[in-house]
């Protein structure tokens, strides 16, 4: 609810993930309700039959088929040519979207730190499972002035890409800013993409650590841009409080298309669920400085909770209708519990 006083900004992966958690989540993998075809052949079985060691089926030979896949044993036995079909293992794209608007920097424990840690944990899981991991920050900014250890050979991963540029290959990060239209605040997106493999963990951590919340987001515009620029298929996780005055519906609708398995994780601070304020107050929105004069009374608090419940219910219903998995998480939930129990139960991890 209230802006987090003196928010702690993690500087390294150690502050985002402790070793115990790393050891606990190392065996987890990102799960998808669909098995998606990837660009690279990964560790993941795809429904698309292809070249892999795992047998899937046979089919009769057709002219033009790759002779390498004829099952000669069957031919010897049946005198018919059958093609061996293998489950193709492909890589999964794991796209984590962090809402870096000013409103994330609220609550105690802070929502933003929670999102950072959750994104790091999920990203780490994706990396160790050789998934293609991308992280996009909506709004906010990148702290470039902080002294940072340069990764060997790559230089600054955040500065080297031109604004608005598409990814130029594996392990790219980009920042882009564009006006989504008249009267709409400029959409600022920071992204790191195409990370794969355990060795990119530090890059991911650096990116996440460099994020600073600020400003407001135009979720719809940002979602449109993300939807346009993303490639492949996979799992997309949106970390946000979904308190968007312009509405989250259009944005989610845009994101849910194109074969992505979408997870909308609503991160709420405990103070947002149960406000601990009292008296005659002028509430100021940290994002747009909008003001609401309230006198905190018992009926008003009751009403607020009802409104919040209704809001979350609407979101849940909206998501359910579009096969979006909606998760509502309080920031005082322990990360272990969240990842090891909650997300596994909800099918994001396995």
């Amino acid at each position, binding site marked *: 609810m209230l802006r987090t006083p003196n928010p702690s900004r993690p500087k390294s992966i150690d502050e985002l993930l402790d070793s115990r958690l790393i050891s606990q989540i190392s065996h987890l993998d990102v799960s998808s309700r669909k098995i998606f075809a990837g660009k690279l052949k990964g560790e993941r079985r795809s429904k698309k039959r292809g070249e892999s060691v795992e047998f899937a089926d046979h089919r009769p030979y057709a002219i033009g088929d790759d002779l390498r896949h004829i099952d000669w044993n069957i031919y010897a036995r049946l005198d018919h040519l059958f093609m061996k079909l293998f489950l193709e293992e492909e890589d999964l794209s794991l796209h984590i979207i962090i809402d870096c608007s000013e409103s994330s920097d609220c609550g105690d424990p802070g929502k933003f730190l929670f999102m950072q840690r959750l994104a790091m944990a999920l990203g780490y899981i994706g990396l160790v499972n050789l998934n293609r991991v991308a992280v996009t920050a909506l709004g906010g900014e990148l702290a470039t002035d902080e002294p940072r250890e340069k990764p060997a050979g790559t230089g600054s991963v955040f500065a080297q890409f031109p604004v608005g540029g598409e990814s130029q290959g594996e392990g790219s990060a980009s920042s882009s800013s564009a006006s989504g239209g008249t009267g709409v605040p400029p959409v600022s997106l920071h992204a790191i993409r195409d990370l794969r493999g355990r060795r990119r963990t530090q890059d991911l951590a650096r990116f996440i650590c460099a994020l600073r919340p600020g400003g407001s987001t135009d979720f719809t515009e940002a979602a449109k841009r993300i939807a346009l620029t993303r490639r492949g298929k996979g799992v997309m996780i949106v970390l946000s*409080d979904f308190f968007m005055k312009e509405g989250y519906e259009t944005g989610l609708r845009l994101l849910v298309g194109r074969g992505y398995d979408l997870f909308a994780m609503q991160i709420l601070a405990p103070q947002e669920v149960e406000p601990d304020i009292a*008296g005659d107050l002028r*509430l*100021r*929105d*940290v994002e747009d400085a909008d003001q609401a*004069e309230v*006198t905190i009374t*018992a009926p008003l608090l009751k009403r607020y909770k009802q409104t919040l419940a209704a*809001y979350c219910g609407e979101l849940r219903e909206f998501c359910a209708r579009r096969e979006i998995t909606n998760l509502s998480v309080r920031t005082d939930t322990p990360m272990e519990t969240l990842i090891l129990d909650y997300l596994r139960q909800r099918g994001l991890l396995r």
Partner: protein
Amino acid sequence: MTWATPLIAGVAAAVAVPLLILLYFLKLRRREVEVSTTLLWKKAIQDLQANAPFQKLRRNILLLLQLLMLAAVLFAIAQPEQSTTAGIGQRNIILIDRSASMGATDIESDGSRTRLAEAKLQALDLIDAMREPGLLDRGEDAADQAMVIAFDTTAEVVAQLTSDKNLLRRAVESIQVTDAPSRVKEAFRLSQAQRPQRFVENEGLDRGPPFAFHLYSDGRLPDADEAIPAADDRVLFHVIGQQTAANIGITALRAERAYDNPAKLSIFVGVQSTDTIRRTVDCELALDGRTVAVREVSIPAALAPPAGDDSDGSRTPGSGGIVFELDMPDGAIARVRLDAGSDNDPRADVLEVDDQGWLVVPPARQTSVAVVTDGNLFLADALAGMPLARLDIFTPTEFVAARASGRADIYDVVVLDAWLPDAEAPASLPPGRWLVLGAVPTGPDALVDLGGAGPAQIIVWSRSHPAMRDLTLDALTIIESHSVELPEGSGAITLAETQLGPAIVELPAADSRAIVVPFDVMSTNWPFQASFVLFLAQAIDYLDRDAADAAAASGAGRLFRPGDVLTERVPPGAQDVRVVPPSPQPEQDLVPSRDGRVAFGPIRGVGVYRLRWTGAAGATDQRDGDRVTRHFAANLTDADESDVAAAPQITLGTQTAQAEQFGADEAVQRFWPYLLMLALGVLMVEWWIYNRKVAV
């Protein structure tokens, strides 16, 4: 409904109400809190407002309640009060009649309460009903003020003008009924004297706000028309007592000894009744405590005023009298008592104080006269017929010898016939009482002798002088008159004059008194006239009275009325002078002035007063060892006072005050405690509502 301190409340309201509203607006300056989003709050507020149409009113209900509470407090500060009593002014003069008639017991049928008690109760109610000073405003004009004056014959300020109700209550309660008649004039004058006189520039004398006189009396005020309140003063006559009250009282009491036989004593008792029927009462006479006679006296009924009489409409009391005749040469204290049957019916005689009277009867006293003559037969013969205790004839030589031996001191009056004793200069006569015939005492305080003159005729004489009363001197012819002149500045009084000058002169001096007839009586035709004997008798009587305290001789000088000041001269050298009033009044020591005069009073009650001292005794005093006692009697004997019927109105000098039956004055009702209670209640309701809004 009046407001005790409206100005202060107004000021407080002018300050407090805008302050409250200002505070209310200030209260709306809210604390600013940053939240992640206002989205949900706005929705919640909208929902709440949509759900509660009285939300706005509810937010303001606190302000309304606070305003209501403030209004209650402000009204309390203004101190509204309601008094049902009419006539309370800012400055009240409470005049309470404490005269004898206020002791009448016609308020209750069983006679248990006197009029004064009723008057005090009503006055206390009035004091209760007065405006009190406000809690905040203690100024001079903030409260009603009152002064308490008790009056009978004299008036006394019991409490000065003050707003201190306790003081006023104590003052009223301290008033006791006296046995004196009522005179209201002095009370009014006293109240006017208390009026603050302030000189205001360009306006003249400011007499302050007008007075409201509250006169608690039965209206028996004979001098009411002499009382002059100021034109703007209001006089409220709170009549105490019944107009039909019946009373029988002694209105006159006198003792007289027969001229020819002083041993014969007559006691006259005048009785008055205000009852509407003829009454017969017993009159009892007691001498020195022994009842000697009881007589029945019948008194006619009081007469209703004739129709068309526009006076106060009171009845004319019926009156009667009775005479006790006794043969009593000795002095005594006589007590007369009426038995009007008030033991059986208290309403038959409501006033007790006038039912008895006392008289100090001096012993029968006769004069001793010495005649110093060389042989005047007329003189001796004329005096021989008089009722004298003693009559001795001396020649001048014998008289000088008698004086030298002190034997002459027993004579009250000495008649000098053409002879004068030697006197020490500058006195013309030695101390004593002298009737000088045919001789002229000369000196600065006596006469200037101009020698013999021709025949003369008395042309004018004093008819009012006791020695000359009833004389007819027209026929007196003086063959050979003696011309005298009164020296300038002399205190001599001419009693009769011829055409040539003074013919009979009284010479008062410090220690002597003389009546001088300068001409030779033998050279006139006076001895052959009745007026000569009469003159001798009256002159001797006059000189004798003067010698032995004329008033005391008849007892008249020993009679007082309550309200009078008892003044008496005790013999020189008297010590340890005390006055013993009738119980329950306490004894009192008196200090005589240099000429032996003592004063006590004013006398409050009826009865016998005794003046006691150690030293020389007067002629009529009782001696008891070395203590000397002189008796005085105080009686009411006032027809106005005994007429106890309450007057329906009083006519004052400037206005007429109708009797007002106010009844029991209701105490002033003050509302500020209720207003404060209301404020407290509103405060609690406001607190409850506020808490209901805040509490979960």
